């Protein structure tokens, strides 16, 4: 303990700034992981609707594609068991000035008439007697009957009233079932099953939220893995700090060993130092993570909304368990990364007590061996990248990424030496170029670690940048093929992915009669539960799609023939993610519940699609209406006739549908908003990258500062020999620039490899879509210049310290 205090803690206190930088780096790394986890839980964990919490304990629930016929309820109620059935309707209502709010229809027998408003919403409504709602294109003024003592924001209407305002007579969205305690659950379940049409889904209530979690797991996994990057960068920094600590104290360690200290004691000392960094950093990190989560939860909820389903962020909850997990994580990362240097400390022989310490320590690193191992790891990475997804996770891709990072780190020494050799003639002219190059190659081990850390962060930035740009480019191209119509009509109000508010029935007739329209394609979106996953059952007019659209099918499929084969037949198209997720190919058969029946569809083709990783199953309108008669259309696409004036038609359609609460958007507006949603979706990614870069910068500043402090005497001598303060500063900045350059070179190479993994392995396996590779060279170049600039800026403080050293003091201190 005493040893720990004198050998480890005291120097830490003397180097307060460096200690603080290291701890801060660990803290940031841990904070990001904690923040993403907390925010992810909050943003995706609250799928159970507020209504479900209101109705209390539910044992089973019934749902069906396109709704359940109300008459089935009577059959259920007639069952001779002690069972309670609660029929439910669900829709999004648009409240003026507030936006979309869930509206539930429920059996409110005995309650006051009129609309029931949750307490959370009542406050925002300002206590008016009546509320104006817009539902499925129609406006309703409803009297407020009561305020429900329940959190969250939602509205409840009596069932019949709800069916009226939703325009869905005779349909139920869900039936919640509570089974009496004395009943034989299995028997009851079997009886209910028997009373329901084959197409209805009878599930435990957890199943839906499990389905949600399953739907989001790939998304959350990728986010989580991305959040570990900062931690990896932090691990490099701890490794670096402990290495420096060992190198500086070789003589002291030698003396300790000469005085009889055991090897394990020495190793323990340095592990303790790392543990200190890890635990203190992680504790700070958990607190910081809780704060960051507040910002992240909004970003994640946006993404979930745009890609998957309605999500209302729940409260952030930081449990004691999570705090402990965060701290243990920090400690493990710290111990793991300190193991190497601590082992080196352990191997210091007592004779080194006589050595003159750090300055004479030669880097033991063999660049040749490093390069061989790098090649081995790169080979393994290549192998791992070929692996199939395991349980839906791209494990092989992640392993390959980790191996690639390892390979880059091992190749770093060779790169440092190589680049130094190449730049030698250039740099030789400037004396600080010479000095900087020499000092970096002299402490090869250290230089390599910091280059590897910086490179990892840069590689992440570059690879994710390439991935996002590729994705964006792919989506933009796809939008070109997808959005062929001139005008798009959909119900007003924002709605999340997977939610399909209906167009008012009258709109169909109005649109068909539009003057100047060559064709109108009505699309029906219906939530579908397929093999325990969510998806969308869609229907459109395939003849219109064939004649006017540009649906893009996977290679080798005849678009025209496929589209011709759909109308009037039980045939379907599936989107690429759907096909990949469920391992389907053209010609395969799938069975899905529709209306009262279970229908077997033959897959006619697989088409490219990028709006939902859950996927689409598309049939012709006639097929859908055959099984789900009266199913309302959810949006429409209008193709203009040749020579029609688009502006005029737009105005005409807007005018005529004004009473039905729809928005009519021209093609470009829709495309723009699609791209905007895309960009918003990736905002969280950029935030994560920024943190990784900041951590790496802290590392660069930290290492340069260590380099300066360890070479105090040399820097003093330089001043005696006629170096000006400016030259010393220039030398340190040159080192910073050199480090930055090396890191960028390595980072770019690694980043390119990682981007291939992200685009072709991780994305494909996680989300099921094929992305075209597209490197945004301009943006990448600008970003790398910025990184380089920032590295040099990170050198400013160490450079200032170096320039301000008192030569007289440092040369004479012993």
């Amino acid at each position, binding site marked *: 303990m005493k040893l720990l205090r004198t050998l480890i803690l005291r120097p830490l206190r003397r180097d307060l700034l460096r200690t603080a930088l290291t701890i801060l780096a660990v803290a940031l790394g841990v904070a990001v992981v904690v923040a993403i986890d907390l925010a992810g839980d909050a943003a995706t964990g609250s799928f159970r609707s507020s209504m479900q919490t209101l109705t209390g304990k539910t044992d089973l629930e019934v749902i069906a594609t396109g709704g359940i016929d109300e008459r089935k309820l009577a059959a259920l109620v007639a069952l001779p068991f002690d069972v309670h059935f609660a029929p439910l309707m669900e829709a999004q209502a648009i409240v003026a000035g507030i936006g979309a709010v869930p509206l539930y229809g429920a059996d409110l027998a005995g309650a006051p008439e009129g609309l029931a408003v949750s307490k959370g919403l009542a406050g925002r409504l300002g206590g008016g007697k009546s509320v104006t709602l817009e539902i499925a294109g129609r406006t309703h003024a409803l009297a407020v009957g009561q305020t429900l003592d329940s959190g969250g924001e939602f509205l409840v209407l009596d069932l019949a009233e709800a069916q009226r305002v939703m325009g869905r007579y005779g349909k139920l969205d869900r039936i919640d079932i509570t089974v009496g305690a004395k009943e034989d659950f299995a028997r009851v379940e079997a009886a209910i099953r028997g009373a329901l049409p084959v197409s209805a889904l009878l599930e435990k209530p957890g199943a839906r939220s499990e389905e949600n979690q399953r739907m989001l797991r790939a998304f959350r996994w990728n986010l989580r893995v991305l959040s570990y990057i900062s931690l990896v960068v932090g691990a490099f920094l701890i490794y670096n700090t402990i290495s420096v600590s060992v190198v500086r104290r070789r003589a002291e360690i030698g003396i300790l060993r000469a005085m009889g200290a055991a090897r394990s004691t020495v190793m323990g000392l340095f592990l303790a130092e790392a543990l200190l960094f890890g635990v203190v950093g992680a504790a700070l990190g958990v607190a910081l993570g809780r704060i960051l989560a507040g910002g992240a939860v909004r970003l994640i909820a946006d993404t979930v909304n745009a890609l998957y389903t309605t999500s209302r962020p729940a409260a952030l909850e930081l449990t004691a368990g999570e705090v402990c997990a965060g701290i243990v994580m920090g400690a493990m990362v710290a111990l793991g990364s300190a193991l190497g240097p601590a082992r080196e400390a352990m191997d210091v022989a007592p004779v080194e007590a006589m050595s003159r310490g750090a*300055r*004479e320590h030669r880097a033991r690193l063999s660049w040749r061996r490093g390069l061989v191992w790098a090649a081995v790891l790169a080979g393994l990475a290549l192998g791992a990248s070929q692996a199939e997804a395991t349980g839906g996770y791209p494990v092989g891709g992640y392993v390959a990424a980790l191996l690639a990072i390892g390979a880059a780190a091992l190749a770093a020494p060779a790169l440092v030496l190589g680049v130094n050799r190449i730049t030698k003639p250039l740099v030789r002219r400037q*004396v600080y170029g*010479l*000095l900087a190059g*020499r*000092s970096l*190659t*002299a402490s090869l081990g250290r230089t390599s670690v910091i280059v590897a850390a910086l490179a990892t962060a840069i590689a992440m930035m570059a690879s994710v940048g390439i991935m996002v740009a590729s994705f964006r480019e792919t989506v933009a191209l796809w939008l070109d093929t997808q959005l062929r119509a001139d005008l798009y009509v959909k119900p007003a109000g924002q709605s999340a992915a997977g939610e399909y508010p209906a167009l008012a029935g009258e709109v169909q007739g109005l649109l068909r009669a539009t003057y100047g329209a060559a064709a109108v394609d009505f699309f029906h979106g219906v939530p579908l539960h397929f093999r325990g996953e969510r998806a969308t059952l869609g229907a459109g007019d395939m003849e219109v799609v064939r004649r006017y659209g540009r649906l893009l099918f996977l290679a080798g499929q005849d678009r025209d023939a496929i589209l011709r084969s759909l109308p009037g037949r039980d045939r379907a198209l599936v989107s690429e993610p759907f096909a990949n997720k469920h391992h389907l190919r053209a010609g395969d058969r799938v069975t899905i519940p529709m209306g009262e029946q279970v229908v077997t569809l033959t897959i006619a083709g697989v088409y490219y699609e990028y709006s939902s990783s859950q996927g689409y199953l598309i049939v012709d309108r006639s097929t859908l209406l055959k099984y789900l008669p009266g199913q309302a259309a959810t949006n429409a696409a209008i193709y203009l006739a040749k020579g029609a004036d688009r502006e005029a038609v737009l105005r005409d359609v807007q005018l005529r549908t004004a009473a039905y609460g729809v928005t009519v958007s021209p093609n470009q507006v829709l495309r723009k908003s699609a791209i905007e949603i895309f960009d918003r979706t990736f905002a969280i990614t950029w935030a994560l990258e920024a943190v990784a870069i900041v951590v790496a910068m802290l590392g660069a500043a930290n290492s340069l500062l260590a380099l300066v402090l360890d070479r105090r*005497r*040399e820097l003093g*001598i*330089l*001043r*005696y*020999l*006629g*170096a*000006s*303060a400016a*030259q010393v500063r220039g030398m340190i900045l040159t080192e910073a620039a050199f480090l930055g350059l090396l890191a960028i070179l390595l980072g770019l190479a690694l980043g390119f490899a990682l981007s291939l993994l992200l685009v072709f392995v991780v994305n494909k396996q996680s989300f099921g879509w094929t992305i075209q590779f597209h490197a945004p060279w301009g943006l990448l170049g600008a970003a790398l210049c910025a990184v380089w600039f920032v590295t040099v800026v990170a050198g400013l403080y160490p450079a200032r310290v170096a320039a301000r050293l008192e*030569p*007289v003091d440092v*040369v*004479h201190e012993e």
Partner: protein
Amino acid sequence: MGTPRLELSGVSKSYESGEQSVEVLHEVSLCAEAGTVTALVGRSGCGKSTLLNLAGAMDFPTAGEVRIDGRSTASLSDGELTALRRERVGFVFQAFQLLPTLTVLENVELPLLLAGAAKTAATAMDRLRWVGLEEKAASMPYQLSGGQAQRVAVARALVHSPLLLIADEPTGNLDEASGEQVLSLLREAATRYGAAILMATHSAEAAAIAEVRVRMRDGRIQAIERQ
């Protein structure tokens, strides 16, 4: 004989330590002339190193004046001081203080490189030849013995033909034979390159090569002996 290259007149130096200030040099006056070796001798802690730092314009007196080549060091700007060190002053230290990351030749070249001079390698090689270590030019400092390293340090201190060479216990870490080699080099530097050499030393052998011996005690000059 020659003109004074270095003049100290009434120089005092005190260090603040806490509340009180400790005077480590008290009204010291002396001068060093071109081509002569001046030795500072005295007990450990008497202020030799302090005086050398003042003389080399690395530090400044609390009172009195240090003039190098006629110019008072206290009046010079940072840039002028750097220029002064580059052109007129060379240093040799007790612990050789070669830069471990540079080769022997580069170490010798360094002052010229820092000053942005031309034909640095040739001049440096010339000095290395003079100290007899030409064949070590490409070696790294850790491959040298202590005596060789100090000879390299002497070559480095003289590479830019300084007017003034400051040496703080140049033989302090060396055995007798190596010490003698270094001393004869310093002696020769004074005669051959015309430098004024100011050297602090504990050794009688070193003091013996000096024309002038300045005996110090507790920050004061006790006696100046000329040969």
